């Protein structure tokens, strides 16, 4: 049994280097010129990330299976050497955070370019690019609507403000059936865990990027109809609430 397997492995390792070596030998002049002129290695099709465009064509979407597999792997990775559920959620949150910062830039870029291309006839100033959110509500609407649509192709299900007078800085965004949790079954002993902490991290990144310091956590709140219902609790920092008051007085919308 072991012999043929071993030989198969050998053949793989033998065949692989050959095409690579061929690749290297094939265009030596162009490659060397490139290296010499810029000190930069360019892919063989000569397309750097700056040559690709950022707008997604319709229907060019990722497979759900691929996403589920990758996300499961991310959860497994985050679970290594954690001290508890909170630690695990914190790590998932940290994985989402840089994504939120990036999505924010991408989201604005896409809405800007689509608004100018769709209304090319009108002057460029009238096709107003979207504004940066200055107050809390526009920010939350941005997350609830455009961001959710960019991520999950639908808006979030609810947006609420905390009714308690002690916590005016708390807002809740509800997703009845988060995509990230669709293929995750949490073991009984970890019933507190909600892997949508990853999405909470994305929201936190978006809030921070806009200049709204916030802590975002994901909580299970199942109902009979929606067993996977998740509430994202957005807690804005002191500085944000102070600025909110100043801006309200100044009449900034």
């Amino acid at each position, binding site marked *: 049994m072991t012999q043929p397997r071993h030989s198969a492995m050998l053949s793989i390792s033998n065949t692989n280097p050959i095409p690579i070596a061929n690749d290297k030998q094939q265009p030596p002049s162009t490659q060397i010129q490139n290296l010499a002129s*810029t*000190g*930069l290695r360019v892919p063989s099709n000569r397309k*750097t*990330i*700056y040559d*690709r465009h*950022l707008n997604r064509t319709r229907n060019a979407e990722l497979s759900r299976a691929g996403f589920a597999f990758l996300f499961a792997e991310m959860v497994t990775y985050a679970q290594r050497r954690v001290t508890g559920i909170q630690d695990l959620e914190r790590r998932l949150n940290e994985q989402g955070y*840089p994504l939120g*910062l*990036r999505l*924010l*830039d*991408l*989201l*604005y*870029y896409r809405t*800007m*370019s689509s608004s100018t291309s769709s209304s090319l006839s009108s002057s*460029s100033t009238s096709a107003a*690019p979207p*504004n*940066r*959110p*200055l107050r809390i509500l526009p920010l939350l609407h941005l997350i609830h609507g455009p961001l959710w649509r960019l991520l999950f192709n639908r808006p979030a299900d609810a947006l609420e403000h905390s009714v308690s007078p002690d916590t005016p800085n708390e807002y809740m965004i509800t997703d009845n059936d988060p995509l990230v949790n669709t293929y995750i079954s949490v073991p009984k002993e970890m019933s507190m865990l909600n892997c949508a902490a990853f999405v909470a991290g994305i929201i936190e990144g978006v809030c921070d*990027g*806009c*200049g709204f310091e916030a802590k975002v956590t994901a909580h299970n709140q199942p109902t009979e109809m929606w067993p996977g219902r998740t509430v994202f609790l957005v807690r804005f920092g002191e500085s944000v609430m102070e*600025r909110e008051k100043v*801006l309200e007085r*100044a009449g*900034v919308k």
Partner: protein
Amino acid sequence: MSYYFTILSPTDVPLFNIAFGTSKSGGDGIARFRFPDTAQYMNQFIIHSSLDIVEEAQWMNGNLYLKHVDTYPPASAYISAFLAPSGARFLLLHQPPQLPSTATGSGSSSLLGAGFSASALGGGSSSRASSSSIAANPTSPQTEEAVRQFMNEVYEVYVKTVMSPFYRQGMEIKSPVFRTRVTAAGRKWL
């Protein structure tokens, strides 16, 4: 016109900077600032000192492009700002040529350097009055529009950089391709 463009991270770390001159109306694209070559740090000094005003304007105006935000009259330096949604600041310092005659006749930088101290005292107002042409007028709507187009183009390239999985927020942008793209945008619009 001479330009100095810089990108600052949300925590005020310079991520990228470049100096270039105009390529419009016969310009050769080489920056000729009013400071001697040994005092180019003045550009950075002026541009960073405008941050206070940018941070004030940032919460009064929700646009990405904040237009012309600050002027430093002694050097007649004008600063325009653009805010990326995730908090990076794009700042462009533009300085009209010292005299309309030397601008067309490729004034040598050493001469400009010698004349700097004299112009610093009274040059601010006189040069603004003399530069009546649209291209040399830094606050005209045409200039604002050109800078806006430039900023939008840089923003596109910046988003591409940010989307790279190997880039983290706050890292210096070293890519030579990025630099050539920004230079090209400058040549196209400014």
